[in-house]
């Protein structure tokens, strides 16, 4: 049986409180405590060895829009980025609001995916926010969470029932926080730059009011709500305060939100258009503070591929979203360089924290665990080139950026899914 030794790396395994130079042994797709028989060796001297990274916010676009991305190409992006497990958002066509679509995604993933794909199901039918999706059946079909991501349930009564109902199945509820009346047809953060550029504002309060709603709902139902891609300072403050009270609330941040601010829209480049929008430098600093003090538990990409022709249009009509799986790790490692997080804290937000939230049997290098491992070269200097991307799309604002640190080997179930040449 194929076996592997990863030698001399700095092993960071937050689940086991490990941070030391040691070897990692893999046999028969599992982590083992000791070497066994004939082995292939990966020399990880000077490298960091972590549990396989997890991204709980990915749009694979299949079924329905495999011109933008497919399960095959999206998972190849993940592997290149160091991610061994990803959670697929349900806003496909048809939406993942039925067991047939979940079965299709799992089947396709089994055939073509090079990393683990965990589907998320819809909260409501067709993500319309009107009627509950068959949440229990979706759970049986294998979803790890429910969310209407890309959309937000506006009806508070429906949201309350969805959370109560999902609790019965031990399913966390994830929410894209956006009040439609307030955000209206906004295309960027409402503030100085929207005033200058004459673009319609999507104000922070449209996110914050739903974050506050979710905190109240989590409290009322005593069940877990996860706020996706926080972008504003007050959202961070609301979650921080709620966590102190013991509310079952968690939050994620995306690399683009903690790296960039709304000033970058000044040339109307649609690769800086995403939902929620880039906000101010003060918001960015608040996200960093939230990451540092643990208010923000998880880092996720919101990998959202769109075709070039769809993005090369007037700013108002371009779709929201950017690809992010391949740049996520480097942009996150910058947080360590900036002393926002320790390396171990960062790895928690990319492994144990997402695994714990969604009850994934992942995110650890314990003996017996699935052999999902990421080997990271923290000093690698490289330039991101979308032309070289594994994605079918190239809508990244980080094209041409010089980055530090990257995954060099991604191992999924004991097999090398990707290796830097």
């Amino acid at each position: 049986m194929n076996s592997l030794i990863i030698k001399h790396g700095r092993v960071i395994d937050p689940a086991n409180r490990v941070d030391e130079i040691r070897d990692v042994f893999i046999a028969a797709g599992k982590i083992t405590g000791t070497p066994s028989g004939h082995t292939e060796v990966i020399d990880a001297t000077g490298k960091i060895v972590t549990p396989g990274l997890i991204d709980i916010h990915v749009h694979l676009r299949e079924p329905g829009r495999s011109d933008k991305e497919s399960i095959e190409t999206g998972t190849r992006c993940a592997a290149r980025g160091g991610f061994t497990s990803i959670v697929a958002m349900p806003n496909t066509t048809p939406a993942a609001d039925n067991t047939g679509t979940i079965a299709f995604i799992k089947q396709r993933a089994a055939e073509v995916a090079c990393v683990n794909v965990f589907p998320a199901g819809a909260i409501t039918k067709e993500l319309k926010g009107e009627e509950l999706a068959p949440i229990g059946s979706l759970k049986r079909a294998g979803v790890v969470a429910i969310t209407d991501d890309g959309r937000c349930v506006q009806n508070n009564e429906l949201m309350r029932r969805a959370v109560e109902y999902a609790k019965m199945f031990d399913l966390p509820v994830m929410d894209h926080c956006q009040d439609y009346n307030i955000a209206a047809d906004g295309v960027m953060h409402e503030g100085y730059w929207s005033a200058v550029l004459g673009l319609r504002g999507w104000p922070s309060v449209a996110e914050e009011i739903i974050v506050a709603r979710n905190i109240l709902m989590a409290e009322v139902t005593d069940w877990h709500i996860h706020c996706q891609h926080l972008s504003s300072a007050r959202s961070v403050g609301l979650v921080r305060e709620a966590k102190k009270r013991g509310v079952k609330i968690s939050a994620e941040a995306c690399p683009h939100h903690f790296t960039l601010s709304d000033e970058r829209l000044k040339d109307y480049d649609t690769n800086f258009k995403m939902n929620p929008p880039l906000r101010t430098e003060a918001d960015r600093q608040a996200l960093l503070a939230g990451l540092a003090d643990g208010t923000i538990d998880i880092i996720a990409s919101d990998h959202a591929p769109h075709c070039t022709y769809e993005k090369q249009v007037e700013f108002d009509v371009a779709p929201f979203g950017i690809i992010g799986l391949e740049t996520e790790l480097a942009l996150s490692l910058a947080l360590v360089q900036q002393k926002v997080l320790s390396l171990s804290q960062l790895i928690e937000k990319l492994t144990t924290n997402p695994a714990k939230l969604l009850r994934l049997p992942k995110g650890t290098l314990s003996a017996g665990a699935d052999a999902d491992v990421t080997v990271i070269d923290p000093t690698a200097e490289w330039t991101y080139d979308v032309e070289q991307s594994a994605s079918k799309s190239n809508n990244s604002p980080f094209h041409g950026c010089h980055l530090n640190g990257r995954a060099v080997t991604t191992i999924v179930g004991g097999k090398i899914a990707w290796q830097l040449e």
Partner: protein
Amino acid sequence: MKRWQRKDLLGIQELSAAEINFLLTSAQAFKQVGKRSVKKVPSLRGKTVVNLFIEPSTRTRTSFELAATRLSADVINITANASSLVKGETLKDTALNLQALHADVIIIRHSAAGAPHFLGRLLKASVINAGDGAHEHPTQALLDAFTILEKKGRIAGLNVTILGDILFSRVARSNIWLLTKLGANVTLAGPSTLVPRVFEQLGCRVTHNIDDALRDADVVNLLRIQHERQRQTLFPSIGEYTTMFGLNKERFARLKPDAMIMHPGPVNRGVEIDSEVADCDRSVILEQVTNGLAVRMAVLFLCCGGQVVES
């Protein structure tokens, strides 16, 4: 400044005071042309100018068309609405088609902010912004400045009040950049929902008190309340707007005696301005239209590489 260096005129924000003054000086020469019995000059003979208007407009389109015609250019008018463009051919493809037909200048009016900038990056042809969403309308600001200079002899130190829907106004933004660059004191006024405080960061005074806004004004520039750009939540009714912020006879009487009234048009008589005030001798609304022609001739001429010989 001796020569105009830009291929495009996309906005006022990126222009220096020297560039603005150069444009205004050039426009003076073209204003003289309009007073002759033969109003046509051969400056752009053989050039192709496309009026690409993807948002309804008569005044600005006509002004640009006439300006190009008086410079002897060949002019093509294309009108479309943005929604049909979104459903069918993209703006990029439309523009590349025009370039394939060897258009020299594309004048674009579009409901989406930034559309001219997108074309400017894409095309070898000159792109002139004739109004992009709520962003900029540079030739309007230039003709406003030209008119102020003609009447007042200066811009620096003047108190200019812009009254109305600032939030959704490209005229306001272009005027703010131009007037502040040339040293005027700009006051913005109107309902708090349409004149947010954030505009103070653009170098203006913001007030929601109409009397305060008008007291020391040398120039009052009224903006139309634009129903089509607004959500219903921004103010209660046109009637209430007129009561609170309309330039009626009483408010007009309290202005400084030499205060001048401007309006980019189209005027909603009885809404933002009293009908008699619009027609009074201190109103320069029609002179703005005349000056618009001279300014647009200058812009077309300079963006096509022409140079005005200073006398």
